[in-house]
């Protein structure tokens, strides 16, 4: 599906993901966890479609169960003892905490899958090109070199196969030796190639003033609006965090603040923050349909 949020300015994308990832990592309140998990799943499915559904069921569900089981097995804190296994108490609190931390971990991983789809490497380099010019140049070069070297490694490997030195035959040690041979040939090729690249860069004026970036993003009216909304929502959530709306105590017993009107307000702000890209997509779709039906 077309994603409207991906077409926004990289600053908006990056602010959104930084906020959502940090909040998901550090808020252990069940309401916040639930909102974060649900929103991350919806957005991942919007971005990646069937691939995301498969990923969530095949990898995330087992991981959720695994992480949920690790905690009660090693953490014996908590007052409500359910059973004893090998003289070790299994407590209700540690099971609940295990589930909560599993949901946290899984939602962070799903958020990162959305991040990978939206924040492409050229957006990252566009954002950080001015702050860390040398490092972002290294990044963009490595990102280019990796596929190039992989292709070259395949060429070398095919040539080696002709003289019976492929990695696919022989025992483990022979295979490793042949692999090293391929790598060694690749290194020679890559280094010569690299120095030529560097000389070419220098003669074309690398490091001089007034150079522009390859990708060009415009910070438009919509980005201004979105960034302001993001700022307001982040402020609301942070204010709620300072007022202890998101705090929960798991050990030695579970203690949670009762939900008030104020906490509902904070929950709503967090929900709107997490669902911002999906909301934007729905709004775009709706506008498009309305304009289309007017014709």
């Amino acid at each position, binding site marked *: 599906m077309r994603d409207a949020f991906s077409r926004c300015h990289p600053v908006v994308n990056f602010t959104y993901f930084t906020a959502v990832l940090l909040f998901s990592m550090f808020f252990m309140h069940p309401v916040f966890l639930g909102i974060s998990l649900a929103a991350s799943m919806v957005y991942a499915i919007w971005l990646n479609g069937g691939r995301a559904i498969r990923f969530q069921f095949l990898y995330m569900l087992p991981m959720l169960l695994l992480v949920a089981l690790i905690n009660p097995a090693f953490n014996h804190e908590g007052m409500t003892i359910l059973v004893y296994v090998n003289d070790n108490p299994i407590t209700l609190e540690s099971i609940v905490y295990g589930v909560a931390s599993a949901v946290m971990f899984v939602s962070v991983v799903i958020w990162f899958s959305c991040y990978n789809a939206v924040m492409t490497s050229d957006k990252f380099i566009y954002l950080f090109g001015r702050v860390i010019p040398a*490092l972002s140049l290294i990044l963009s070069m490595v990102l280019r*070199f990796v596929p190039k070297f992989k292709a070259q490694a395949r060429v070398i490997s095919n040539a080696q196969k002709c003289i019976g030195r492929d990695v696919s035959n022989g025992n483990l040690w022979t295979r490793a030796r042949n692999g090293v041979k391929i*790598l060694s040939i690749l290194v020679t090729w890559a280094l010569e190639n690299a120095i030529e690249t560097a*000389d070419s860069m220098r003669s074309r004026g690398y490091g001089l003033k007034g150079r522009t970036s390859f990708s060009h993003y415009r910070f438009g009216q919509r980005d201004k609006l979105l960034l302001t909304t993001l700022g307001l929502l982040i402020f609301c959530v942070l204010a709620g965090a300072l007022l202890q709306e998101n*705090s929960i105590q798991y050990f030695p017993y579970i203690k949670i603040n009762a939900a008030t009107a104020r906490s509902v307000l904070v929950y709503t702000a967090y929900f709107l923050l997490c669902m911002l890209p999906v909301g934007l997509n729905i709004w775009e779709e709706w506008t498009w349909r309305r304009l289309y039906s007017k014709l």
Partner: protein
Amino acid sequence: MQAKSKSGGKRLNKRTLVASALILLVIPATIVFGIFVLNDRKYYLISLLIIVYTMLPFFMVFEKRKPQAREIVVISVLAALAVAGRVAFFMLPQFKPVVALVIIAGVCFGGEAGFLVGAVSGFVSNFFFGQGPWTPWQMFCFGIIGFLAGVLVQKGWLSRNRVPLSIFGALATLLIYGGIINLGSLFMTTPHFTWQGLLAFYVSAFPMDLVHVASTFAVLLLLSKPMMEKLERIKIKYGLIEPEPEQAL
């Protein structure tokens, strides 16, 4: 390259200054903040921030001294080789040459280059395998192994011969990489630090770690000599050589 060797002493001082400010002021402040403000997530946040602080001075110093095109390209090539090197061993599952190549980079081009190659290859390989909460930990582990290799060789405490290097590589992979990455996964998933929990992570990751150790050892044993010869040749042929290392040795 010329400017770099002239300001060599000063560069180290500046990095030491930033690093000591971070270690003496910012890290304790973070720990105090974490203990008093956060409850259950304190281990993860504190450890993550400490890792970021440790990496910052390297990046800052590198940006400050406005590196030359040739230096940038060599670092990029080494990092890309570390990432792409997996293709050469695609028939051997879990065979990762990253640590070995990072160590070779550190030995040939010094600690700083070793750190950058390590951190960049950790970051970039996750563009292909997926970014996650583990990215900073991997960047830090690869980087610090490259840095250590460079510093130890420059100080003369580690020989450039292939057997000592391979043993160093195997130990670094097991203790530094395995040690820190497993600690990171413990902090990511559980709230309280327990020795049994840590032990469980080490035990369950041990087979994977062992494969990683074996691949680092094998690659260093087979590749370190020819690859270091190649890097030295490039250094001499294109004048990347600095007068500094000879004095230091």
